[in-house]
């Protein structure tokens, strides 16, 4: 019931946003909608943390610890980006880059986007999980295209075509899985339900399950942004409005990863073999390796952040492939930490973009002097994202490395560490020039863009700094439960 409410509220907010004429009133509606959505999600997560997984009476919704982790990410990141959106959109409107009609569309699709992502996290039927993930692509494509300029249209076209074609293969995988589970359980509407399929005593036909999972890995892997299917990701992330980039990178990819994890668990229950792990590790490691040269030669800072996202999705996939209690828990922590730091970075990148009117790194200089707060947050974010202690990602990446060595993947983990170090060097090289570089001719008056684009950054900043040192027990317990589900422990 609460889950239903969590989907309905953003959907309605989206509808209202189109019909409200006055800007102030629309922003109020947007804010109340976002705050309510986040609150309800947190209530839902609290329920799960207290009393274990929830299933609705008609079996439509199922919320376990795994979805709770994703839901926390949705709640926190969407709240931050909602607040930031107000400042960002006002500025774009002043600059004449967005018309009133586009602003209305922005708020509408923004809330629908969040609704689809919540749907992905709470739905029980794995066919509907696919439908939800495809719906996130469609709704966010409207958001990526919002500027209607040449590059934005190109990015949207690639995003839509690559993701839809990729995810079509995932649907083939779902159909094969359905055929296999139908052969076992007979035809009824429940056989694609997670609550049925996650039962570890259910023995499906192994060869069909392998085939199905390979298709699903390719399909959802495209959406997660794993190399070599990542080509849409840097384009869409760099061309979308910054709050949307933050949502895409911080939340959407994790939702797709949730799909991958759920199907992975089902496949693992039948196969008990190495193949699932090998697929995760292979695609993950390739993503980390591919991301490095692109980060090194990058000129556009939003694209650089996008490739860093490819790297981190790769790390998460490797961690899922390594497995073991520590590996799974570390993968989930990495997911949360990455969402916090990367959404923060994309929002600061939005501020920088609006101030310097350029996304090119050579045209950004003396950031620390011109925008003191944004500059400092950008520095902290970069340090965090590249895995420097004492920030949050260091903790989770370190756990992943430890898990890797413990599970006997010494060579693999060493390669991973090597490339993470390379990427640290490359990103630092770029960011230092932006932060401290000397002025190159143009004069830019110091000062932040607006209060709305600065204050929201505090929320993720708290998590970036605090989670490196201390994590609340409630949260670690939730992650622990989720990692048991990942290890095939079924309903916790």
């Amino acid at each position, binding site marked *: 019931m609460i889950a239903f409410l969590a989907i309905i509220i953003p959907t309605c907010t989206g509808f209202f946003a189109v019909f409200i004429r006055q800007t102030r009133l629309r922003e109020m509606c947007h804010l109340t909608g976002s705050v309510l959505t986040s609150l309800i999600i947190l209530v839902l997560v609290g329920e799960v943390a207290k009393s274990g997984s929830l299933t609705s009476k008609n079996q439509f919704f199922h919320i376990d610890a795994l979805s709770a982790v994703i839901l926390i990410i949705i709640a926190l990141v969407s709240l931050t980006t909602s607040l930031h959106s107000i400042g960002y959109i006002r500025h774009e409107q002043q600059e004449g880059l967005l018309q009133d009609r586009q602003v209305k569309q922005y708020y509408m699709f923004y809330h629908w986007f969040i609704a689809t992502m919540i749907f992905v996290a709470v739905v029980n*039927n794995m066919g509907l999980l696919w*439908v939800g993930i495809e719906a996130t692509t469609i709704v966010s494509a409207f958001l990526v295209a919002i500027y209607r300029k*040449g*590059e934005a249209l190109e990015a949207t076209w690639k995003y839509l*075509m690559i993701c839809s074609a990729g995810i079509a293969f995932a649907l*083939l995988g779902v*159909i094969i899985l*359905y055929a296999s589970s139908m052969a076992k359980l007979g035809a009824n509407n429940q056989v694609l339900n997670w609550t049925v399929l996650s039962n570890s005593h259910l023995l499906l036909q192994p060869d069909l399950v392998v085939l199905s999972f390979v298709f699903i890995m390719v399909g959802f892997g495209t959406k997660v942004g794993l190399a070599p299917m990542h080509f849409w990701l840097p384009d869409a992330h760099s061309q979308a409005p910054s709050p949307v980039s933050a949502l895409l990178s911080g939340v959407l990819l994790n939702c797709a990863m949730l799909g991958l994890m759920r199907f992975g668990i089902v496949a693992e229950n039948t196969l008990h073999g190495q193949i699932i792990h090998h697929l995760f590790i292979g695609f993950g490691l390739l993503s980390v390796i591919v991301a490095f040269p692109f980060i090194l030669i990058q000129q556009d800072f939003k694209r650089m952040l996008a490739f860093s996202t490819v790297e981190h999705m790769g790390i998460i996939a490797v961690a899922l492939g390594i497995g073991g209690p520590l590996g799974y828990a570390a993968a989930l922590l990495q997911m949360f930490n990455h969402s916090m730091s990367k959404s923060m970075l994309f929002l600061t990148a939005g501020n920088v973009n609006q101030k310097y009117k350029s996304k090119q790194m050579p045209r950004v200089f003396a950031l620390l002097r011109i925008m003191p707060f944004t500059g400092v947050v950008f520095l902290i974010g970069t340090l965090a994202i590249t895995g420097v202690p004492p920030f949050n990602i260091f903790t989770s990446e370190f756990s992943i490395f430890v898990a890797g060595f413990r599970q006997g993947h010494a060579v693999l983990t060493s390669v991973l560490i090597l490339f993470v170090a390379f990427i640290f060097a490359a990103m630092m090289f770029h960011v230092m020039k932006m932060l401290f570089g000397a002025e190159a001719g143009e004069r830019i008056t110091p000062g932040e863009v607006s209060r709305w684009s600065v204050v929201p950054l505090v929320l993720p900043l708290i998590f970036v700094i605090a989670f490196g040192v201390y994590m609340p027990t409630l949260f670690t317990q939730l992650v622990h439960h989720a990692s048991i589900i990942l290890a095939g422990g079924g309903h916790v």
Partner: protein
Amino acid sequence: MILLQALSIVLILSTLGLLWIKRIITAIKILSAQSLILGLMAFLIAWQTHTVDLYVMAALTILMKAIGIPWTLSYTMHKIGVARETEKLVGREISLLIGGGLLTLGYIVTARLPIAAGGLSREYLPISIAMLMIGLFIMTTHQKAIMQGIGLIVMENGLFLVALVTTYGMPFLVDIGVFLDVFVVVILISMLTYRIDKTFQSTHTENLRRLRG
């Protein structure tokens, strides 16, 4: 069932026909015919197996895929000026040859699949897999935006047939969801094609090469 077989032959011919045509309007018409056949096949299978859900799906397929989607696409074509020709990286003769190759491949890869549901899958699964691959082939070789979209719809049609012949359709809600997704994708494709045409004065995807690295 002889009628079903006849329909499936027309289905595969229409898919191969998409590789041969020169004008985009013709492609849209073929797509409409293809979806109509798909709807009729769903209808026949529903009649054979007495599945109520499938009747609804058949009606929806004919209504949305055979009428709604082609109408939306041709409306877009009308808005950006009709009589556009397709452009592709591979010539017509070679594409047709590759299409035949993909069909053969469909038979080879599905021959060893242990999908047991009903007797339908053995006959029709190869065709549906071939449709999926030919759809992907159209997406990758055509350079006009709208033709890439048509390739995507052919892929979706292939998937619909896979689900139809292996499991007599997915669970009802899932099928409806997939349908809704496909329909919105088509609207988005139309909108984007229109915008791309307005911005670049052409729907050639050669213009979409600026974002790199």
